[in-house]
C-alpha cells in the first residue's frame, strides 16, 4: 500500500516489477491516496506526504501480532517477516502453550512457560541457539 493511485500501481507492475517477479505482483497493490489508512496505522509521514516502510502481521482473528516500521532508505528483510509469521503460527497452533525464544525457526526447540521453567531457562536454552542457523 502506498499513496500512489491504482493506475500508477498498474504501470509500475506492468513496466518494471513484472520484469523482476515472474507473472507480476501476485497480491493486491493497495492505494491510499491522502494517507488516510497510513495515518491510522501510524506510518504516514505528513511532511513528505508518503508512507514509511511499515509492515504489519495480522492473524486470522484480525489481531495485530507484530509490526516493524523503517524510514524510506532501508529495505526490509522478507525472511525475517516469514520467520516471525512461522513463529506466531506455531504459538497459535499450541494455543499459547509454547513460546519461541530468540532466533527461533521451525525445527528448533521451543519453551513451555510454567512454574517449573522459572529460573531454569539457562538449562534448556543456550544463548548460542539464538545465532544458530
Amino acid at each position: 500500500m502506498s499513496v500512489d493511485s491504482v493506475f500508477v500501481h498498474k504501470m509500475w507492475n506492468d513496466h518494471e516489477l513484472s520484469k523482476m517477479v515472474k507473472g507480476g505482483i501476485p497480491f493486491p497493490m493497495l492505494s491510499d491516496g491522502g494517507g488516510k489508512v497510513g495515518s491510522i496505522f501510524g506510518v504516514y509521514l505528513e511532511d513528505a506526504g508518503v508512507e514509511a516502510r511499515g509492515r504489519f502481521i495480522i492473524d486470522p482473528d484480525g489481531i495485530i501480532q507484530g509490526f516493524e516500521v523503517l524510514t524510506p532508505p532501508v529495505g526490509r528483510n522478507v525472511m525475517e517477516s516469514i520467520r516471525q509469521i512461522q513463529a506466531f503460527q506455531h504459538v497459535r497452533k499450541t494455543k499459547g502453550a509454547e513460546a519461541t525464544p530468540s532466533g527461533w525457526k521451525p525445527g528448533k526447540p521451543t519453551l513451555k512457560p510454567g512454574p517449573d521453567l522459572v529460573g531454569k531457562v539457562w538449562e534448556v536454552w543456550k544463548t548460542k541457539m539464538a545465532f544458530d542457523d
Partner: protein
Amino acid sequence: MAEEIKAGCARPTGGPVGEKPKTQKESSQQPLIQEVKSMVTVGKKAPDFTAPAYHKGKFINVQLSEYLGKWVVLCFYPGDFTFV
C-alpha cells in the same frame, strides 16, 4: 471476495471503516484526518479499512476484514518507482 471496480476518470479512494467518531459532516474528508489518531497496538484488533487496489490486471476494492480467517501481511512503502 473483492469486488471489481470500473476504471473511471475519478481517482478511487478508500479509508477507515467504522468505529470513527463522526463529529462533523462527512462531505469533506480532509479535516477528519487530523482527528484520526494512530490506534495500532500489538495484541489489539487491526483497524478495518477499504482501499482500491490493482490485482492481476484488474482494479478491485479490498477490505481488510474480508481476510479474517487468514494471515495477512500489510506492507506500506513510500512510493511506486522509488528504488528500494
